[in-house]
């Protein structure tokens, strides 16, 4: 990994007083060129040193995807380089290969603001989604509970921090769903937190926010870790990867470490900079595509609802 540039690091141009759409989208397009230039400058390479270009095909917002896809296509065409399409979740999962090599079969728990998925890896770049959230993603549930507790956005890390100071003294539900299901559901838990706060308020009682955070966090972690553990056993995996932005959650990291230290299963948690959305993880997944020779043609497009590949 030679460089990993994130757009927010680049000094943003001063915006005009109001919103001027052409300027706004030009700003976006300008950013991508600047990022490509900066990434190559930091890595001390030029286009002639590259073997290929990897780009996110989806899922995501079509406007954002198109800017990336078109920039990659233009650069690949101009410099006669192969183009490798990458699925965003494959990127999160493959961030792990920046740490160490895979041992298959493997299992990845991808937890972020937008995703909560259990993905089985049968071999190199062979993914099977065995569980997903049916309503809110785990990170989103954190943010919503934080909103209710009056914590600033993004609230996930704040809830994690607050939970450290509290006791798990509030009984909250855990949605285990059907016995053999690896799916998740966090909206019932979210509603239970709201109801608890609401009812206490009506009775004029004080509830310690730290205890709410601790109880909520305990419920989320228990179901995430338990289902991961069960899937790891059932599918006889050799490695488990914790990926996505919520992998930064201290409580979750500790619980995952505790769950797998005594087992033969190797637990990998990529460093935080590779857990939140970043370019290096797309490069890592692009490497897998390169190994498999999965190139894209010039008809490549951004696909908002892309299925995992």
């Amino acid at each position, binding site marked *: 990994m030679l460089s990993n540039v994130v757009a927010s690091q680049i000094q943003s141009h001063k915006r005009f007083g109001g919103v001027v759409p052409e300027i706004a989208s030009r700003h976006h397009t300008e950013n991508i060129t600047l990022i490509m230039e900066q990434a190559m400058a930091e890595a001390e390479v030029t286009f002639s040193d590259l073997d290929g270009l990897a780009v996110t095909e989806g899922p995501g917002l079509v406007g954002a995807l198109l800017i990336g896809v078109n920039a990659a296509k233009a650069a690949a065409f101009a410099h006669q380089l192969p183009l490798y399409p990458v699925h965003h979740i494959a990127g999160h999962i493959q961030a792990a290969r920046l740490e160490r090599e895979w041992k298959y079969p493997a299992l990845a728990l991808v937890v972020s603001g937008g995703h909560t998925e259990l993905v089985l890896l049968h071999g190199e770049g062979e993914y099977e989604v065995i569980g997903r959230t049916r309503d*809110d993603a785990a990170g989103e549930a954190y943010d919503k509970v934080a909103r209710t507790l009056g914590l600033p956005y993004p609230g996930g890390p704040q809830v994690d921090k607050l939970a450290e100071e509290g006791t798990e003294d509030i009984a909250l539900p855990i949605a285990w769903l059907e016995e053999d299901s690896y799916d998740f559901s966090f909206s019932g838990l979210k509603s239970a937190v709201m109801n608890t706060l609401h009812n206490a308020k009506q009775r004029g009682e004080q509830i310690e926010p730290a205890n709410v955070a601790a109880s909520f966090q305990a419920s989320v972690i228990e179901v995430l870790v338990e289902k991961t553990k069960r899937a790891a056993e059932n599918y006889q995996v050799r490695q488990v990867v914790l990926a996505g932005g919520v992998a930064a959650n201290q409580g979750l990291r500790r619980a995952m470490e505790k769950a797998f230290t005594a087992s033969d299963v190797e637990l990998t948690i990529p460093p935080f900079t590779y857990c939140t959305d970043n370019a290096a993880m797309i490069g890592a997944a692009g490497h897998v595509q390169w190994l498999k020779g999965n190139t894209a043609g010039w008809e490549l497009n951004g696909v908002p609802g892309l299925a995992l590949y």
Partner: protein
Amino acid sequence: MLLEYTSTSPEQTLRTAETIAPYLKGGDILTLDGDLGAGKTHFTKGLARGLHIQEVVNSPTFTIIKEYEGILPLYHMDFYRLDDVEAEEMGLEEYFENNGICVLEWAEKISPILPPERLQITIQRVGENKRNIRLEPVGESFIERCKELENHEDISN
């Protein structure tokens, strides 16, 4: 005009929405308001079921827009996290002018570009599991269809 329904469970909220779905047509704009945990995602799941969408419909809060394919496309959007500049950059008009159904949460965030004809849906929490679902049509086409819907017998049963 105003239509009101009472729901006493997430499943009933879902079924209420499912009953509404056949009255919708391509290009419809629905705004969906309600507090956290009111059942906005469940309501949208119901619309999706009515539109024969197979995919799991989950919350769009983080991703902002989720697209689903059914007998009509369904675009589920949540503008909570959006600022004005981003709203302009998203090309929302293209979604609005498309032949799909747009369900918008936190629509007030995009009020300058919000189409005038729409169905305004509000889910209000009245008890732990009890919800009041209100439909307020704006524009002739929605008023007509809400009148038909009013005559529909077993909504939310």
